[in-house]
Each structure stands twice: as structure tokens, then as C-alpha cells.
């Protein structure tokens, strides 16, 4: 399977926003079935993909994610009937916006993973992790995080250390 024992120079941080009914259950199934996938994925559970505000994706990148995965129920399977349909449009638009701003969309993955698709979860999580690993760290947002307006910039060693400590 996906046994990763080798040491990588770069371990990407992947944030996965998932719905509780399908993808979270799918990821759980992957766990109970003892399927292996990279430990880089941090799962954040939501009631529905319809609750996942695009600002969460933005925030994840700002706070140090190298890749973001958003996953929910297959169309037609939404526990709330249409949450994922709404989410689909919203993410289509948000993707276009991020692309226009200059974010490489290879860092952002959307998927439908049902409660029965433990294998698909492993596949999606692994593929995104390895793709982002190959791309290297998400520097853009992290660099912004440390930038100051010229008037407020002072280079004290303490401040620099403090900034570097921010993940």
C-alpha cells in the first residue's frame, strides 16, 4: 500500500475540510481498514460542504497550509439535500478567483468521497500530498504574513524571531 518510511526534506501541511456525513466517515473507514496514507493531512470536520466558507480555505493558506483539500458527499447524496450543490458553484467561483489572484490551483483539490470510499480518500489525500510535496512550500501567503508597510517596519531580532515562530 502506501507505506511511507523514507524521510522527506519537506513535509507539506495539508488541511482537509470535510463533511461529517460522507468524507469524514470515508476517512474513518480508511482508518478502521488500516489503509495507509501520508500523515500530512489535518482533517477539519464540518456538518456539510455547504458550510465551508471560501474564507476558510483562504485562512488555511494564510496560516501556513501548503495545500487544501475540500471534500464532501457525491451529488445527490447530501444529508441536507443540496448543500454540496451549492458548495460546488461556490468553489467553482472561488477557484477562478484564486487563479486570477495568482494562486497555483494545484494546491487546492476538491473531491467527493462517500462513507464507503475509504480507498478513494487515501488516493485523494495521497495524491494531493505528493503533488504539493513536489511543488514545495506555499511561500506566497507565508511571505505576505511577514511583510510590513515601510513605515511600520523595524528589524529587531526579537520581532524577526517572533515572526519566524509563526507557523
Amino acid at each position, binding site marked *: 500500500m502506501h507505506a511511507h518510511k523514507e524521510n522527506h526534506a519537506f513535509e507539506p501541511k495539508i488541511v482537509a475540510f470535510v463533511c461529517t456525513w460522507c468524507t469524514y466517515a470515508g476517512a474513518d473507514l480508511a482508518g478502521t481498514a488500516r489503509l495507509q496514507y501520508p500523515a500530512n493531512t489535518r482533517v477539519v470536520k464540518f456538518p456539510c460542504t455547504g458550510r465551508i466558507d471560501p474564507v476558510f480555505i483562504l485562512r488555511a493558506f494564510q496560516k501556513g497550509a501548503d495545500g487544501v483539500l475540500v471534500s464532501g458527499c457525491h451529488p445527490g447524496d447530501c444529508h441536507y439535500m443540496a448543500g454540496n450543490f451549492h458548495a460546488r458553484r461556490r468553489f467553482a467561483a472561488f477557484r477562478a478567483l484564486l487563479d486570477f489572484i495568482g494562486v497555483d490551483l494545484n494546491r487546492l483539490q476538491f473531491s467527493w468521497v462517500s462513507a464507503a470510499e475509504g480507498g478513494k480518500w487515501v488516493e485523494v489525500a495521497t495524491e494531493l500530498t505528493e503533488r504539493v510535496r513536489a511543488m514545495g512550500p506555499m511561500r506566497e501567503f507565508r511571505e505576505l504574513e511577514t511583510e510590513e508597510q515601510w513605515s511600520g517596519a*523595524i528589524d529587531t531580532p526579537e520581532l524577526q524571531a*517572533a515572526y519566524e515562530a509563526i507557523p
Partner: protein
Amino acid sequence: MPKTITDQNLRLLIDALVAEGKRVVGPRAAGTMTLYAPLAKGEELNLGELPRRSAKETFFPLCETILTYERDKEGVRVTDVDPGTIPGTVLVAARPCDVAAAPVLDSVFSWDFKDEFFLERRRKTTIIGLACTRADDACFCTAVGLSPNDTKGSDLFLTPLTDGGYRCDAITEKGEALLATHASLFAEGDGTPAPLAEPSLGKLDLDRIKAWLDTHFEDPLWGEIAERCAGCGACAFLCPACHCFDIVDEGGETKGTRRKSWDACGFGKFTNHASGHNPRDVQPQRYRNRIMHKFKYYVDKFDQRLCTGCGRCIRACPVGIDIAEILSAIGTRDQEPGTGKD
């Protein structure tokens, strides 16, 4: 004894100051506009137009860090920013309307609480003012008692000459010192000053305006002029004298940064209480505060006015509010006390 400096030597002076390790701030081209910004070399100095933002950010940054914090099992560790690390700065070719605001702001920042971030920047900055030879239809420095060659706040003052150079007058000891350390770039003498800018608005009767404001906190005028106000902060943020700020913690439970950044009384949330009550709940009340603070409260407290007539708020207002027009209108209003009603 007056001195002169050529345009080329002014730029060499900037190079020399940069070489000394000073941060030199002056008008620099930035895309479609000019902004006060650090200059890497004299060539970057751009004297073509009034910078879009005022020079206040030299002393009062748009956003600055006050402290950082970290929390773990051991407890909370707070690291204050040491204002001593603020770099020595020379502000070059700042307009009189920008420079004159600095001593006015000293009053509030050294009043009951000493704002060491502001004051340390003031102490460490030498200001080279530059007389204005061009005014547009929004300029009104002469109407509020300044002039295009007002030296208020400057340490050194440059007056453009007809031949392209500048006359240079030392106004303070700081200015004398800068002149003395770079004496070779200056020549003895005078020169013919180029004609000064002539703002078109006539002198305002500021005492009369103050007297009206004293008795007209409630007046229909506020609604008339400010109902159109959109409630943004463009006027306050471009103003050389507006100095409200907000302090926020950005970060998380375990670590973060406390920052101070510009705020504006035009914002709806500016006076919003934690309870949800907002004492200035409609825009005219917020706009009234802008005028009152500039031309009454600050006068009562410090006998100074928070307006230098730079005209930036007039140029930038999204809905065409013109403070000079409002002041003119107030100056001609009936002095009878208001009705006590909005």
C-alpha cells in the same frame, strides 16, 4: 547666512544620508501616483506632484507592532517592541502642509499618555521642508493660516529658485547640524525664489467658525452636508493631522502580535460599544465629529487646529464632500445658538 543647493546636490545629499545609514523618506513615484516612501538613492526623489498620502506615516505608521506574545505551559511571555530600535530618519522635500501637522500632533501624543512610538520617531527624524510652487483647486493652506512656504515643523527649509536650485534655511538646531555635516553640498548665497503657489480659496475666519461650532453641536447643517457621506476612511487616512488609531491583537491563543493601526471617526463601528449601543449612530453625527475635532475640540484642548489645508480629503472623497466649502459655509452662518435639535 542663507545657503543654496542645486537639485543635483540635493540628490547627492540623499545619497550621502543613505550611506550614513539613515532612512531617507521622500516623495517617490509609486505606480500611478507619488507617495512618501524610503528612498534608496537621490535619483528616486520625485517632486512632480503632491504625494497621495500625507507624510504623517513617517511618525505615525499605517500599522505598527507594539508587542508580541507567546503562551505555553510555562506561562505567557510578552515581548515589547523597543522604540529605541526605530531607525534615524530624514524626511526630505515634505510639503509645508504635511510638515506643519507634525508639531500639532506632538500635543496629543505627549499629552496625558506619552506615546513613545510617535515621540521617538519625532525625535529621530530631521525634516527638510519644501516650499510649494503649484496649487490645485483643492489646496487651501492659506485659508487656514498656513502658507506655501510656511516653515512650521521643518528643521531645514528649501525654497525653489527660478534657476532650478533651492535656497536652504536652517530653522532648528537639528537643521543646522545637518547643514554643517554636509556643508560641501551647499553654497553661500541667496537667489531669486520661484513664484509660490497661490491657493484660490480666501482666508477663513477660523475664530468665527470656532464660535459657531461652540454653540451648534445640534444643527440641521450636519444632516445637510453629511447625509451623503459614505462612511469610509479615505479623508482621515489621507489627512496629515487625523491621528485616531485602533489596537488589535492578531494571532491565536498560543502566539500573536499586538498592532496599532489607523482608524477613522467616519467608520460606523468607530464608536460602537460592546453592548451594541452606538452613540454616533448616523453618518452626520460622525461627520460632525470630524469637523468638531479639527476646529473645536483640539482648539479647546491645545489651541491648535487639526487641518493644514492640504486638500487631500477633498480630492479623495468618494462623494465629493468638500471641507473647505463646509468651513466657508459655517463661517457665514448665523451665530445664534442652535435649536438643540438635529
